[in-house]
């Protein structure tokens, strides 16, 4: 019985979410649209950090690569938003994989410091418009909205449904990952790399794959983020964003889908709702994070021990 509830609670909540545009105010729709996007990024961070166990403190970079790819292709070259998602995923996955190739040899804290470096370089490159196509500190304005069969999804509700749809797809992929060879290999590497390699696991290959996969999914979220806000600027992909994503996974619960979603609610949705109290926000979160890590190091909603 309990098992049944657990199994159907997630899908039911997602279906319920489809009704949001018809039931809630515009303010709530935009908050939940951003929740869907950030939840996808947090889930992709969880692939690298929570499942494969690599301290990746630069995840906002891949999110940014996706967003910038979409903004450039849409604004400068007039590509439709949905079509830009494919190059956005590929570009982010490539950046993730290529950066990871030399870095995955590093262990724990060393990898963490290296990814912080990556994060800083990305931010600087965007601010200084190093590539000449990213618009410098102001970023790129006027990113369009997605369209389906020639109909532009102009209304906020429609855009929300697109975001919610991506979240649904990513949740499905994460669920599949749990019952698959790939998901297990990531956990073997996290728990004991030496034991895994002596059983024939090519650790380097799978670690790079984890980075590329996490980055690619973050890139897809970047596409919708660019379209949702209509503007892409360096400020959205600063180092503190990476830190927040990192904290979501740790505070919510590593390798736990409900945990990561709960973490996203706490770190992104709650601050939006209590905007008036913005100045106390990081104070409250700072204390909250300390308390959770001390009292419940496995996260607020940890992964369940269960295997079918």
């Amino acid at each position, binding site marked *: 019985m309990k098992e049944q509830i657990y199994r159907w609670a997630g899908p039911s909540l997602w279906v319920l979410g489809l009704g949001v545009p018809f039931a809630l105010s515009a303010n709530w729709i935009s908050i939940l649209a951003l929740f869907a996007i950030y939840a996808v990024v947090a889930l992709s961070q969880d692939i690298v950090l929570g499942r494969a166990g690599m301290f990746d403190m630069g995840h906002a970079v891949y999110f940014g690569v996706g967003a910038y790819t979409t903004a450039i292709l849409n604004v400068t070259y007039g590509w439709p938003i949905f079509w830009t998602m494919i190059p956005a995923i590929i570009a982010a996955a490539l950046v993730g994989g290529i950066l990871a190739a030399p870095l995955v040899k590093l262990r724990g804290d060393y990898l963490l410091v290296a990814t912080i470096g990556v994060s800083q370089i990305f931010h600087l490159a965007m601010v200084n418009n190093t590539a000449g196509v990213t618009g410098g500190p102001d970023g790129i304005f006027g990113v369009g909205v997605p369209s389906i069969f020639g109909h532009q999804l102009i209304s906020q509700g429609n855009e929300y449904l697109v975001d919610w749809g991506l979240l649904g797809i990513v949740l499905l*992929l994460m669920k*599949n990952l749990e019952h*698959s060879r*790939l998901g297990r290999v990531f*956990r073997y590497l996290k728990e*004991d790399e030496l034991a895994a*390699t*002596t059983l024939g696991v090519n650790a380097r290959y799978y670690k790079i794959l984890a980075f590329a996969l996490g980055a690619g999914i973050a890139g897809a979220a970047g596409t919708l983020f660019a379209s949702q806000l209509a503007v892409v600027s360096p400020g959205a992909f600063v180092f503190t964003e990476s830190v927040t994503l990192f904290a979501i996974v740790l505070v919510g619960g590593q390798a736990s889908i409900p945990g990561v979603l709960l973490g996203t609610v706490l770190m992104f949705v709650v601050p939006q709702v209590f905007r008036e109290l913005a100045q106390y926000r990081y104070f409250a979160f700072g204390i909250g994070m300390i308390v959770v890590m001390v009292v419940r190091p496995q996260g607020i909603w940890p992964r369940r021990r269960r*295997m079918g």
Partner: protein
Amino acid sequence: MSQEMSHTGPLLKLDNVGISFGGLRAVDQLDFAVEKGHIVGLIGPNGAGKTTVFNMITGVYKPTDGAILWKDRDIGALPPYKVAQCGILRTFQTIRLFSGMTVLENVLAGQHMQTRQAWWASLLSTPGQRREERDLRERCMAILDRLNLADVAHEPATSLPYGVQRRVELARTLAASPELLILDEPAAGLNDQESAELNTQIREIRDSGVTILLVEHDMNVVMNVTDRIVVINFGRKIAEGEPLSVRNDPQVIEAYLGSDEDEDVA
């Protein structure tokens, strides 16, 4: 396959193998061979270099000299995962199970090399992938059954008693279908009954066609199950032969019990 057929001579051969860590010569001029179908014991006093030898064979350390030949092919420079792909699988002196995962999930790790699903099939949960997952579970449950572990299949592996954890690690290694099974002190921490069971299990594994190389301190195990023993001390081989002849070798007795001179010094 043709390579397998044409291969004669020992399965594994160490040829003048040596390794140095900085100024320390941990293993020096080591030669020995493991014949197919044999159970070979590698023994020696603490710190003699036994685990270092295992680490070199399995690719964890790279030997600084000599060659490690697997079916006449030098595998000394291969990374551990490629050594495993050759069919050389090992257990560890200190049990290395994946904590936070069930016994079944641990044993599934052994089947990694037998699993075919591509990473995208894992993500998309294709029908072929689901079929493979079901088959994998069945095969692993059969292995667990054989080692009397079926009851604990869904228990978290590292919460089990020590002796059971040893069996889980063995099950995981067997799940990888080894041709050569390397056991690093499989009887360590076992009680008398468990160690007697281990003797039987080791023989059964050999009878199923697996060649075995083991390090063990428990002389009861070593003398009972091995066909051949290699004795090393200070990284060098001091004796080799059948269990009985090795047992009576004066150099071996000296290495284990110390010579008269040592006693004088003490």
